[in-house]
């Protein structure tokens, strides 16, 4: 194999970059990386394609601001976009180029898309618009801010409770579509999106049919010389693992019961973390779940459509029955606890080890928040330490809503009123060792955006409660009752914790604040300080005795950090440093003045 001779990619014709990446073309590698797992399988799926760049799309969609590529698969590429007029975020799906090769496609696309656009259900991703731009078919859809179930399942199975929370929502959406005579045909975890509130939304309705034209064998039966891509697609469209047997055999004869089969596969996968084998093992034989779930799964997975549930609503009813009636015979609680423990054992070491510390992240220059610059340094007992490096460069700014220390970690709902989560020791060490180990540390659990509070608890015994086996610290927080139900229903696995410090009056010793040569003020919070702030202003005030330069001495430069703080408390941690932007107009002899208002004032 000659490495140096080939400079162009044989596949896409792009130039090869040379160097350590050798003879792999970056564009093609990107396409391969973007391809979904489905395409990786050797099933009859459409090949991946190189998604158009943002620059290529911009002139095609003047009404949109295409923001970023969200993903790319056999069904096309999806971008996050903003509708300029409506100021609404939407998802733009560009279908692969080769679908348009079929002359009958335009008509079919228009017909199908119209039908899909009529679907209006909270559990279905809404189609806003569709059409063709420069030969490329596109769909403009509702943007779902969250994750796909597929992404979630990459980490293994989800808890039975979560699975049962998701399934009825999918059932509702599917039943609605089936009532309108629309079959999804490609139900799979990747097409089930979960928003930040834990609501499920089904995406890509009917796209499989649209792109594979499974229901219209007439259009191609007579044609002997079909383009290769169409032959591929014309046979069967869908994702093999989730496809009902009849869908593979008689794609044209598929009815809504194929969706029920696929839903069965999804449920099986959620419960066991695996796809059903040829000879289906009941979920309860693989993992500890309510045996009544076996019946639901196995019936949905019947090979013969007539033996399956005949309507998705029946699946919903069956699932809800399990949710509402505790398992007869065996006591329910121990089962659940055992399941939860097992879940924890299996996953804590991996998933929960992933607990992460999130400290005030992005820098927004220009905003008051950008000027409120916090830095984390080591202990600064006694004297203040001002690193020599320029502040602005290494600065991490607090953003609105970021309060104190956040831990982003995964939680497990143990019961209807508490949530358990673990924090990796790695993160406990640097962050919490600063606190007195003997004192419990109050924490507040939030949803991901830290807008809703879900629970309160305490971290205690930081030194001795770290489980040496998993390296994690376990914490339990009581759920706020009004959110408990939401929490159980949804997937509030990603929790932010806020460490609360005491509401002490803050007195900043003058010597704690220093000014460096650039005019920046630095205040290091010493370990013995407990600081809670509501409103902070930092100002430079002119000298009492006016100096010769009237203009300069009268100039006051006040940086007000208070505006956005009104509704939040700001807990400062020992060792944190408040750094201001340089006061440009400050003249020699002026004083710096930190005005701190106590929380609750």
């Amino acid at each position, binding site marked *: 194999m000659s490495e140096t001779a080939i400079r162009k990619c044989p596949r896409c014709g792009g130039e090869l970059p040379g160097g*350590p990446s050798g003879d792999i073309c970056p564009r093609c590698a990107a396409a391969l990386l973007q391809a979904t797992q489905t395409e990786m399988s050797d099933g009859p799926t459409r090949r991946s394609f190189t998604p158009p760049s943002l620059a290529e799309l911009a002139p095609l969609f003047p009404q949109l601001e295409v923001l970023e590529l969200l993903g790319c698969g056999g069904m096309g590429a999806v971008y996050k976009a903003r509708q300029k007029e409506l100021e609404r975020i939407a998802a733009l799906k560009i279908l692969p180029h080769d679908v348009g090769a079929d002359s009958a496609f335009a008509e079919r696309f228009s017909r199908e898309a119209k039908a899909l656009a009529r679907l209006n259900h909270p559990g279905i991703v809404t189609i806003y618009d569709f059409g063709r731009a420069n030969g490329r078919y596109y769909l403009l859809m509702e943007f779902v801010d969250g994750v796909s179930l597929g992404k979630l399942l990459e980490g293994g199975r989800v808890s039975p409770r979560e699975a049962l929370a998701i399934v009825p929502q999918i059932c509702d959406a599917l039943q609605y579509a089936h009532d309108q005579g629309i079959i999804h045909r490609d139900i799979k975890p990747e097409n089930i999106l979960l928003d930040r509130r834990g609501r499920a939304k089904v995406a890509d309705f009917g796209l499989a049919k649209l792109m594979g034209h499974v229901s219209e064998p007439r259009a191609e039966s007579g044609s002997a010389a079909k383009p290769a891509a169409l032959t591929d697609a014309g046979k069967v469209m869908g994702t093999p693992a989730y496809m009902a047997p009849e869908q593979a055999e008689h794609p044209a004869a598929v009815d809504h019961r194929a969706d029920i089969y696929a839903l069965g596969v999804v449920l099986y996968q959620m419960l066991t973390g695996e796809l059903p084998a040829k000879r289906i093992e009941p979920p309860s034989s693989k993992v500890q779940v309510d045996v009544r779930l076996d019946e639901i799964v196995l019936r949905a997975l019947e090979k013969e459509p007539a033996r399956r549930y005949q309507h998705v609503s029946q699946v919903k009813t069956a699932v809800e029955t399990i949710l509402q009636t505790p398992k007869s015979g065996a006591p329910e609680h121990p089962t659940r606890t055992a399941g939860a423990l097992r879940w924890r054992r299996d996953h804590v070491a991996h998933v929960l080890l992933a607990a992460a510390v999130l400290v005030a992240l992005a820098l927004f220059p220009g905003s008051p928040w950008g000027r409120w610059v916090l830095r984390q340094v080591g202990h600064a007992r006694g004297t203040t330490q001002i690193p020599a490096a320029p502040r602005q460069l290494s600065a991490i700014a607090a953003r609105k809503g970021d309060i104190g220390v956040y831990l982003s970690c995964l939680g497990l709902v143990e019961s209807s009123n508490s949530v358990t989560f673990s924090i990796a020791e790695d993160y406990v060490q640097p962050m919490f060792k600063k606190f007195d180990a003997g004192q419990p540390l109050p924490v507040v659990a939030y949803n991901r955006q830290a807008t809703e509070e879900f629970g309160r608890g305490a971290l205690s015994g930081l030194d001795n409660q770290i489980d040496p086996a998993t390296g994690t610290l376990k914490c339990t927080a009581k759920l706020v009752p009004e959110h408990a139900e939401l929490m159980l229903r949804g997937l509030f696995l990603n929790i932010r914790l806020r460490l609360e410090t005491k509401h002490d009056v803050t007195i900043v010793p003058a010597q704690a604040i220093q000014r460096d040569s650039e005019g920046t003020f630095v205040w290091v919070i010493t370990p013995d300080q407990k600081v809670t702030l509501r409103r902070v202003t930092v100002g430079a005030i002119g000298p009492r005795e006016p100096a010769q330069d009237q203009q300069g001495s009268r100039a006051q430069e006040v940086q007000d950090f208070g505006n956005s703080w009104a509704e939040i408390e700001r807990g400062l941690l020992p060792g944190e440093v408040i750094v201001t932007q340089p006061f440009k107009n400050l003249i020699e002899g002026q004083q710096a003045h930190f005005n701190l208002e106590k929380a609750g004032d």
Partner: protein
Amino acid sequence: MSVSESKDSNQTPPRPLFVTTQWSVVLAAKDKSSPECAQALETLCQAYWYPLYAFVRSSGYSPPDAQDLTQGFFAQLLAKDFLRLVEPEKGRFRTFLKMALKRFLAHEWERVRAEKRGGGQVCLSFDTAMAEELFQGDRTDTLDPDQIYDRRWALTLLGEVLSRLDSDHSGAVKATELALLKLYLTSERGSIPYAQIAATLQTTEGAARVALHRLRRRFRQLFREVISETVSMPSEVEEELRYVISVLSRG
């Protein structure tokens, strides 16, 4: 080398979870001067020096200056007092390095350069001739230093993935198989001559299919693994992955 350690522990295929990585080792280390921490950082630097060189070069420095500066930068980065500035908030290794380099270029290079001329130590050795050859092929006319840096970063990641694929297939037979399959790693589905591959490898067509499928899966898995080694927390993996893919897709 610690790279091979992490590989060995990841032989089981589905492992999308975050493991303790080189970069998080650096970030989490309380004692930044500990040998593990220094080792982890050095491993990272050893792997990702070229994007930095390309950045320096495209910022307008001559090849000799760029070599001095890159080495001087690493010398300082690997020194203890610089590591003190490594903080959990720094996030991605990619952005950390770039930021540190910019700061270095702005303020400290004169001093470091003087030290080096005076016999200062160079902690990291790299192939400057190769670097310059690569840089000549970089699109300095259309990309700015930041873009060149990101592009080279992404390509370096890609190279790292390929070399890990190679070490996966270190046996003679496996190496032959890999050399052949790698040609089709990114090929379109319909265009892969499975029959021909099978004949060359003296196996069945089905087995060739499976082998290529596995190779692709492993490629993706390794990519994620390599990326996860350069971020500080699991939640960043996805985003960084997406970013790197977007850089790669620009070619």
